[in-house]
């Protein structure tokens, strides 16, 4: 049955507290982290946690923040929205925490946002729903490019580099997929284009043949996709190829994740994806990936938590204070800061990144193709 | 020859024993009947014999061997077949299937022989012929009773335990059932019979035991029981 976990908020986050980087001093700089330790997205959660620890070690080795060592307080969000709310409510009770690292999932950020506003301390996060930084909540700082940019980058790539016009858009009906769909539609409209097919689906489908056949009969010359769950993407890819569709495909980041590639294998060869983190796209990313490999014997597929902690630490150091308003001002002042995900130029809303990389799957090897950056 | 010997049987289900030191013997070829009011322990005696009562003390000897503590499946394989009260026909199986399963205790029976015996049994109980393929739950009370007896006989038992076979049956059928009981005995099967209908029971039985609250009140031949005023008043409808 469907009870992977005690869904709902019946159970709160599992606690895992640890001092990073050999902090010895009694006084540490505490940063709260909401992360999935259990549940369906625990696996990416583990990588994100490893990444942030690498950042903490690096910062602590360099003398810490305002002379104090960083200590991470981690709460499990159980991969659910209610779990995230409970996890954050536990962190929020601890007055000594100066800032937070939130979730990569927009729906969890949406769920926690009211509490974050109430707490009034900076929260670095990775959710890519464009509206999150437009809620009038001054404490949210995004360390990944938002979906508005992914949509712009995808449309710019297919109309510019690929010179294709007839788009079939496949998207999950969840918040991520719907946000992506809206961004693509808006950007296509700006170019004076209309998609030949817009097809939503509900997550966790065993069969995508109706969607594949719809793509086939739509006459599209390019597929654009926003898949949330990796198995869905892989099932779709395999059925697409089995039913003989060879249309070029540009997808949201999940299409080139190691898990999806492992499931779909050659069905994804030759597909393009937008990617916020690409090791070869800049030296910071390369250095981080090397450090990660040295420690964990595998390659990271994301660097945003590393950036999140680095920027939060820089903000506190720049502000020379743990007072939230001062940290906020310092973070908003960060320009041209090299992160693993690109160059951070915070705008008034708290969005740090304004562009995406395009990558291609060359027989299971992810190659960096180009970076498309916007300044407005 | 003694087929069954119950010695000092004490048995129950939890809150105090139902049977309190009961002694009963059944000789081969006899029809023995147990009489008594509701709750006297008649059914519990039969259930103890067939292994359905978990906690018993005393001993039960069948052909001189103790069967105390054996599982019901094992006891029926020794040749003791129990037709419990309430008929207990499997509701989702047909009459034929119910009767066929009565032979489950007999090993190595070929399907062909089995089908033949079932045919024979169904013919023996005339009314069942037209009901052969009816599902158990659709039968009326008397029909159920007939199937239950037929099913019990399919075990080819040496000892047949019959619990209230006449319950809810029309007088004509009651007579038929008791004729069958007598017939069973004439074919060499020993019968231990529990009955409320003491008249009928004593009319076919060789001996009877009267139980009262788990103890033996009196035992003897039918005419002795008939003439016992105490028994007559309490269990045979009295003379008032």
């Amino acid at each position, binding site marked *: 049955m469907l009870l992977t976990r005690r869904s709902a908020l019946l159970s709160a986050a599992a606690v895992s507290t640890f001092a990073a980087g050999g902090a010895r001093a009694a006084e540490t700089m505490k940063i709260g982290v909401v992360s999935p330790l259990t549940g369906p997205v625990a696996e990416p959660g583990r990588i994100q946690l490893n990444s942030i620890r690498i950042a903490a070690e690096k910062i602590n080795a360099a003398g810490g923040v305002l002379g104090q060592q960083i200590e991470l307080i981690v709460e499990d969000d159980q991969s659910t929205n209610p779990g995230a709310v409970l996890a954050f409510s536990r962190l929020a009770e601890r007055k000594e925490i100066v800032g937070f690292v939130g979730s990569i999932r927009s729906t969890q950020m949406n769920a926690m946002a009211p509490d974050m506003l109430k707490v009034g301390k900076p929260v670095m996060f990775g959710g890519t729903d464009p509206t999150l930084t437009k809620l009038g909540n001054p404490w949210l700082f995004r360390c990944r490019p938002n979906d508005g940019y992914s949509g712009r980058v995808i449309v710019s790539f297919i109309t510019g580099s690929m010179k294709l016009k007839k788009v079939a858009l496949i998207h999950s009906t969840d918040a991520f997929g719907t946000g992506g769909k809206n961004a693509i539609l808006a950007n296509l409209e700006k170019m004076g284009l209309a998609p030949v097919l817009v097809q939503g689906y509900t997550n966790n489908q065993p069969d995508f043949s*109706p969607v594949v056949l719809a793509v086939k009969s739509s006459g599209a010359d390019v597929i654009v996709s926003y898949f949330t769950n990796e198995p869905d993407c892989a099932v779709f890819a395999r059925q697409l190829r089995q039913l003989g569709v060879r249309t070029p495909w540009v997808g949201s980041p999940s299409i080139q994740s190691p898990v999806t590639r492992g499931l779909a294998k050659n069905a994804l060869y030759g597909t393009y994806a937008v990617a916020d983190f690409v090791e070869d796209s800049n030296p910071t990313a390369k250095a981080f990936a090397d450090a990660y490999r040295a420690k964990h014997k595998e390659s990271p597929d994301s660097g945003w938590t590393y950036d999140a902690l680095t920027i939060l630490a820089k903000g506190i150091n720049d502000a020379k204070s743990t007072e939230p308003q001062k940290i906020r001002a310092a973070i908003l002042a960060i320009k041209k800061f090299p992160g693993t995900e690109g160059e951070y130029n915070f705008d008034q809303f708290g969005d740090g990144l304004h562009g995406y990389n395009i990558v291609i799957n060359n027989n299971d090897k992810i190659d960096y193709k180009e970076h498309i950056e916007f300044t407005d | 020859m003694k087929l069954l010997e119950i010695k000092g049987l004490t048995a129950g289900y939890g809150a105090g024993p139902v049977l309190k030191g009961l002694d009963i013997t059944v000789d081969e070829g006899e029809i023995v009947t147990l009489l008594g009011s509701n709750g006297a322990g008649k059914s519990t005696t039969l259930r103890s014999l067939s292994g359905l009562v978990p906690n018993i003390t005393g001993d039960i000897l069948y052909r001189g061997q103790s069967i105390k503590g054996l599982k019901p499946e094992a006891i029926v394989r020794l040749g003791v077949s129990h037709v419990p009260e309430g008929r207990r026909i499997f509701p989702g199986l047909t009459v034929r299937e119910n009767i066929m399963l009565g032979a489950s205790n007999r090993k190595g029976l070929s399907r062909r022989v089995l089908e033949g015996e079932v045919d024979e049994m169904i013919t023996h109980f005339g009314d069942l012929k037209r009901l052969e393929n009816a599902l158990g739950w659709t039968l009326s009370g008397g029909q159920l009773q007939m199937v239950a007896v037929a099913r019990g006989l399919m075990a080819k038992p040496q000892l047949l335990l019959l619990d209230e076979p006449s319950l809810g049956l029309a007088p004509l059928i009651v007579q038929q059932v008791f004729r069958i009981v007598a017939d069973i005995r004439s074919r060499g099967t020993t019968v231990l019979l529990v009955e409320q209908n003491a008249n009928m029971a004593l009319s076919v039985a060789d001996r009877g035991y009267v139980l009262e609250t788990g103890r033996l009140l009196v035992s003897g031949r039918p005419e002795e029981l008939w003439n016992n005023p105490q028994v007559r008043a309490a269990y045979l409808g009295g003379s008032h």
Partner: protein
Amino acid sequence: MNDFLQLVFQGLGIGAIYALVSLGFVLLIRAASVVNFGQGEFSMLGAYLLVVFFNLWGIPYLIGMVLSVIIMAGFGLIFAYCTYWPLRFRGGLPVIISTIGASIFLQNMVLFLYGPSSVPVDDLFDTPGIQIGEVFLASQYLAIIVIAALLVGLQYFIFEKTLLGKKLQATSQDKEMASLLGIPVVLMIMITFAYSSALGGLAGMLVAPILFVSVNMAGIITLKAFAANIIGGYGSIPGAILGGLALGVAETLGAAYISVPYKDAFAFLMLLAFLMVRPQGLFGEKISEKA
């Protein structure tokens, strides 16, 4: 038209999966009067065993499947011993709850041991499938349809034609009476659970190449298999297969011609419609209460 045929084939393939899982349900309902909410976990465990044997240990695919089926049969006994045996005289509801408990336990143990990521498994055949005109018949779906048909036939034969089947049914309907007839009740129950678990495991292994192996792989399928069981007729074997196929085809066509996001709703709307109009299902329920 070609699209339609393709969709019907896909629907039959998915429907055969529902039917396979549904068979396991029906078996436990018919032979032990147990509604097992942990049935989906049998499939999940079977698929993980195949992953361990084939992906991890490199044991040949078919041998791995056979081994997994055998282990699943054994697992069924343990499952019965823990969730069913202590509650066997207490009616349906306590057993349902304890199978729910077992379901939570198993999912989280597997989650703890293997993590949440999906794992791919190879297809049963190397050939991806057969192209007939415009219609592509994927080999794994063909295999599932064929195996489902065989198993349904086998199960139908056992229940309707053999003495073993009758003994299994008798045990389910009245355990005490069955024991009085000399039917080895414990053995019957053990056979039932072992077979049901093995069947569930096999279903899991067959769908693994299509859905990949993960803790949640069987969730929605199990619910729909349950719905298929009702649509076909509660506890009916031909009903399970027909209900499963009908559900698969209906929801695939519904997705193609009505709405993809509401695809899962079609199964349940169909179930609602059946309950309102023909509650006994396609094949009817065998036993009802007599006044």
